């Protein structure tokens, strides 16, 4: 079914919903690279006018990727909550935007299981940045494993202590530095160089021993392939959180070497370890616009809609953490600071609207037209939007992955400007350790109590 919109003497025709959604997308290099973007600014806005008039029920009824061809589509439709959707099923995309701007938090929580990724993506395309922030701020998602993440007024941080050769002493040094800055409540998560089970085992033991030694109410994670983590669990290695990169199509997931069934198997194995103390959200996923195109598995769908579909995959596994790595993939997908900022807000909004605990790796590479000022802007906007967590990378410079993310200092900035607290259990631990004062602010002294409690660590 085609869609059309008349602007003065000109009629814009869009062959199908996929083309309509792609052309309604705010401009970005990845959709141009895929040949899907609107040909002019006017065509882009004509597509938005047209999209605003499409009923949500029609989006639900017309899967962009056929049910028979893709297991992510099957997951979306088979698990769709019709009762939750009933509240909004009579709305068009344009009505839905206004509904969201008006709705209280409780209503957003009720409809979340009825919101498909395509619906979330569609409405995001006709929303301005301020709409994305305002609605996401109201959509709270709380998850628990060894602490409580996502409560209103809180921001968590993943401590990311990567090292270019997985050196245990170097990683430990970076962890101590991050803890001294009050980072690590989302998790302490290492991207390893080595993908071997032996390498993973050593790092998992390092994290478990460090967390035990200081009795930190948090979880460790080594971000390696899910099958490697499964093997480690089979060998009795302590695994708190199972990590995997995921995408929005079956083909893109296959390019990552991952299927829905292997994710299920890993989730069940992690649950059986019973390492949670206050909850059982044991999965951690990363995503990012452009991954399906990069894997040549995009089915002619725009990259932002496919990204939202990745959140449907995540949602099925009740994750503790999900983050988009928004500027990592490079300028052929998101060219500059403006495109990265827009994508970060869209991803966060879509995830939260779908009930997924979305954090954002606010980041860029050196061949993108972006810099620290752009990251400051996006970080501040996400703080206003109630982002679940961000990354804490020493000095914002990841010396293993060669990209720039947010730093230990950046999260301090955001807390001060926005009045954001840490996960409550972690916050109490910092106070007990003598690292923070009654107001949660860091005490002067350069983390001396931590060093005193860790003689010989990273010696």
């Amino acid at each position, binding site marked *: 079914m085609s869609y059309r919109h008349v602007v003065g003497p000109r009629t814009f025709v869009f062959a199908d919903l996929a083309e309509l959604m792609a052309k309604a997308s705010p401009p970005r290099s990845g959709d141009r690279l895929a040949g899907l973007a609107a040909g002019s600014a006017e065509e882009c806005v004509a597509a938005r006018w047209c999209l605003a008039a499409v009923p949500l029920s029609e989006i639900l009824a017309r899967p962009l990727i056929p049910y028979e061809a893709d297991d992510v589509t099957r997951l979306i439709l088979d698990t769709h909550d019709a009762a939750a959707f009933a509240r909004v099923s009579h709305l068009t995309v344009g009505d839905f935007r206004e509904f969201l701007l008006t709705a209280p938090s409780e209503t957003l929580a009720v409809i979340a299981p009825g919101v498909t990724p395509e619906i979330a993506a569609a409405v995001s395309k006709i929303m301005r940045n301020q709409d994305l922030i305002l609605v996401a701020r109201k959509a709270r998602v709380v998850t628990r494993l060894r602490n409580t993440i996502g409560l209103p007024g809180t921001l968590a941080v993943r401590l990311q202590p990567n090292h*270019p*050769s997985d050196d245990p002493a170097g990683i430990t*040094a970076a962890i101590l530095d991050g803890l001294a800055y009050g980072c690590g409540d989302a998790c302490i998560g290492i991207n390893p160089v080595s993908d071997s089970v032996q390498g993973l085992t050593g790092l998992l033991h390092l994290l478990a021993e460090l967390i035990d030694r200081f009795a930190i109410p948090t979880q460790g994670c080594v971000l390696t392939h899910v099958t490697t983590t499964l093997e480690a669990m089979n060998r009795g290695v302590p695994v708190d959180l199972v990590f995997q*990169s995921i*995408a929005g199509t079956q083909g893109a997931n296959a390019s990552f*070497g991952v299927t829905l069934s292997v994710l299920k198997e890993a989730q069940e194995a992690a649950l059986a370890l019973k390492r949670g103390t206050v909850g059982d959200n044991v999965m951690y996923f990363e995503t990012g616009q452009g991954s399906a195109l990069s894997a040549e598995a995009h089915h002619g769908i725009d990259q932002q809609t496919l990204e939202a579909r990745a959140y449907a995959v995540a949602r099925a596994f009740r994750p503790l953490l999900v983050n988009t790595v928004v500027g990592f993939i490079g300028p052929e997908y998101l060219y500059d600071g403006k495109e990265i900022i827009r994508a970060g807000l869209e991803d966060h909004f879509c995830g939260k609207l779908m009930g997924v605990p979305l954090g954002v790796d606010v980041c860029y590479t050196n061949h993108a037209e972006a810099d620290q000022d752009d990251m400051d802007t996006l970080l501040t906007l996400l703080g206003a939007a109630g982002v679940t967590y961000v990354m804490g990378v020493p*000095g914002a*410079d990841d010396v293993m992955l*060669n990209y720039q993310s947010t730093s230990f200092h950046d999260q301090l900035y955001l807390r001060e400007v926005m009045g954001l607290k840490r996960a409550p259990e972690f916050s109490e631990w910092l106070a007990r350790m003598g690292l923070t004062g009654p107001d949660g602010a860091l005490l002067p002294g350069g983390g001396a109590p931590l060093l005193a409690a860790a*003689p010989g660590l990273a010696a």
Partner: protein
Amino acid sequence: MSREDDPAGAWQRLAALTPARIALGRAGAGLPTREVLRFGLAHAQARDAVHTPLDAEAVQAGIAALGFTPLMAASAAPDRATYLRRPDLGRRLDEASAVALAAAAGDPVDLALVVADGLSARAVHEGAVPLLTALKPALAGSGWRLAPVVVAVQARVALGDAVGALLKARAVAVLIGERPGLSSPDSLGIYLTFDPRPGRSDAERNCLSNVRAAGLKPEPAAFKLHWLIDQALTRRLTGVALKDESDRLLAGPEGVTSITGGARDNPPPSAGEGSRAPDPEQT
């Protein structure tokens, strides 16, 4: 003095354990001024590495001085802005270059070498001639037939496939500027592909990464590359089936060693290996 008494000294010791930017100190929630400026300088150097045009004449002259025959080529990406947005164009030769290479091709050869700007001309300016200098005696010793050394601009790794095919080479080695890290704006990557032809995937290549003065130095890099070329020509393959075992012959290699076969195209958050993979090169 115990650590409790001297946290600053303890942090200094910890900072020596990692190249990560730890123990920076703070001014309220912010960085000390010197760290803001230090970061700014590193980012400026990385940006300049991406945007500085390759001085192709100087690179050709350096190559000619070693006794190799240089030859210029350009990809189908006309400028840097297009190159960054359209990786597909950077993998194809422009028409004039394709014609010129076809005309320059003689009898089949064993090896074609391509020196490409990639994402860091600086890496090529500083690293290509030292690498070729270190490689030359080993090439001569093996007696391989060599094609002219092609100097390519606005090039991605896969451009080497077209070059190798036109020059009738059994294997092609592409020396290319890697995506600059904040602390490594001068890093060269080397990709080896057996039986090069357009359409080869990155899983069919072997890669040596982080070739630079502060990483994998030219001599051990040349040693490893020669070993890989020898294996590739003997076993008639490159990629995941060919693991870099040159370390067994090379005592105490410096710097980071190879990433073998797993390099891919601008990896998404995952390069299929679970975590965000290091992405030193753009193909």
